[in-house]
């Protein structure tokens, strides 16, 4: 025997994961904490974020983070639980935003009414417009969702309807900035945990089955377009809700609601945060949106830095923060002698 002994890395599941996967045997406070602490950190962290922000400006950034987080959850849900790549963040935001602005500015309805109505009505309208491409597989859904915001913005511009290029001004704001921030934070948490619950229901299994293997779903006597439509309603509702909130925050609805940022940034956030984890995209937004604000000082160079960060993530941590983090949390490594 030499001193040069062989060693290998061993990975072990930690805590209750080792006992069962799905049936949680809650035996002790330690195990309860193992399950609840990560969730509590997220919830409490989100709730105290506005309080620790240094000023009005950064509090507003947190609000914008939440809007993007809604879009990112919506993208992640459609892409990784239904197999539909949706570039329609801008479409949803624009539709929801304009509906809320019209209801508020023309009919004088308060935000408490306009936001839910814009969410539901916007989701219906978006789904109806996307219905023709739901039976198709492949890139069609992505292309059509990308097309709608461009088309709608041009229509509003060319026909000079809905305020034309000036937009709709004089929209009411939320009662005060605390209401504004805690509304969007509550909404993000609600949808985050709601969608996580949904994808683990039997209906969520059907969604995943449509992604895995739509022919087998058809052979089981189920209309795949119907289930896709349900999922698109849910995803569009999230986007429209974000748009409606955004309009009340900016007190203005304009063509910039159809800006492609709303489509692209959620995708980048999903890449960074971890695809298919739902919470990852939220984290991705919490990282990306403030970074893009910080980089504002650099002017147009901002895009370069921004791209470098993205490339760095894609190359070195393509699985995303959350996937990596979950693995580290659930498993530990040690060196053992061979």
């Amino acid at each position: 025997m030499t001193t040069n002994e062989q060693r290998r890395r061993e990975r072990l599941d930690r805590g209750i994961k080792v006992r069962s996967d799905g049936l949680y045997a809650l035996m002790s406070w330690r195990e309860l904490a193992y399950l609840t602490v990560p969730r509590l950190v997220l919830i409490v962290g989100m709730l105290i974020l506005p309080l620790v922000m240094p000023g009005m400006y950064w509090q507003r950034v947190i609000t914008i983070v939440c809007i993007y987080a809604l879009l990112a959850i919506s993208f992640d849900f459609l892409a990784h639980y239904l197999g539909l790549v949706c570039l329609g963040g801008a479409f949803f935001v624009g539709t929801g935003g304009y509906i809320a602005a019209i209801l508020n500015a023309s009919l004088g309805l308060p935000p408490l009414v306009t936001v839910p109505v814009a969410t539901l009505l916007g989701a219906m309208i978006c789904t109806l417009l996307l219905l023709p491409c739901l039976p198709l597989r492949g890139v069609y859904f992505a292309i059509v969702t990308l097309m709608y915001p461009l088309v709608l913005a041009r229509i509003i511009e060319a026909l000079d309807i809905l305020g034309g290029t000036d937009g709709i001004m004089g929209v009411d704001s939320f009662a005060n900035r605390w209401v504004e921030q805690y509304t969007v934070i509550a909404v993000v948490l609600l949808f985050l945990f709601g969608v996580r619950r949904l994808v683990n229901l039997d209906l969520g299994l059907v969604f995943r089955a449509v992604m895995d293997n739509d022919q087998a779903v058809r052979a089981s006597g189920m209309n795949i377009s119907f289930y896709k439509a349900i999922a698109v309603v849910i995803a569009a509702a999230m986007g429209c809700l974000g748009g409606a909130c955004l309009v009340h925050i900016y007190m203005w609805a304009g063509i910039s609601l159809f800006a492609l940022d709303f489509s692209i940034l959620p995708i980048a956030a999903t890449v960074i945060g971890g695809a298919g984890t739902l919470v990852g995209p939220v984290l991705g937004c919490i990282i990306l949106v403030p970074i893009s604000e910080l980089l504002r000082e650099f002017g147009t160079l901002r895009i370069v830095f921004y791209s470098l960060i993205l490339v760095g993530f894609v190359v070195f941590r393509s699985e995303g923060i959350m996937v990596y983090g979950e693995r580290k949390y659930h498993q530990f490594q040690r060196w053992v002698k061979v």
Partner: protein
Amino acid sequence: MSEQPILEVREVTKTFGGILALNRVSFDVYPGDILGIIGPNGSGKTTLVNCITGFVKMTSGRVRFRSRDISRKPAHRIADMGVTRTFQIMRPYYSLPAYKNLVIPLFSPRAKRTGGWRGGGKLGDRNTVGIDILEEIGFERDSFVPYKMASSLPTGYLKRLELARCLALKPDLILCDEVFSGLSMSEIASMVPLIERLQMDGITLIMIEHRLRELFRVANRVMVLNFGAKLVEGTPEEVMADPSVKEAYFGSEEVEEVMTYA
């Protein structure tokens, strides 16, 4: 037979571009039958199943199930009526455990109406019903097999899973696209009683097979397809005795072997 056929196929034709995949195929299936469909590779067997179940639109012709025209209906409507199929290339939901694979068909409108396989009325917890169906089809309940990911199951179990997915809908008619192929002799030996049990449960089966020995054991009628057209139809003995079948399909030496097996 005085009985009303459960499935009437009339003059079904399918062309892919200039290629005639099915040429005016007509046949009847009666309740409780096991109809075997055989034919050389490329003779249009799978296309026929695709046309009947609505996965491919037929060019012309008519299919009636329980006297209702299903020739232009979409696939999910046909499955909803009780005409289910298995896929030759198995299509499980690979990212789900085997028993969760059955939650999806049990979620369908038909399963909600019928209560799932052997269930009457109300459908209970889908996971439990799923495991019940899997046990019936040959997954050992107390082993790990029903809980394994579909991606890690061997072919034999995947073929059973295909059948289980049909059974979850409480079907009247199952079109089995090569459930025996790719299985070992012992796996087939355990599959044959399963097919017979389905027949006893009152399910009508159409079976596409290349494993003639096992097919002739279970089937009471056999149809031979060649170049998309129906060559012969009859009892297994009649079909084997037919000289045109020998010529088109078996080849001169092979037929002796098949007949001694049967």
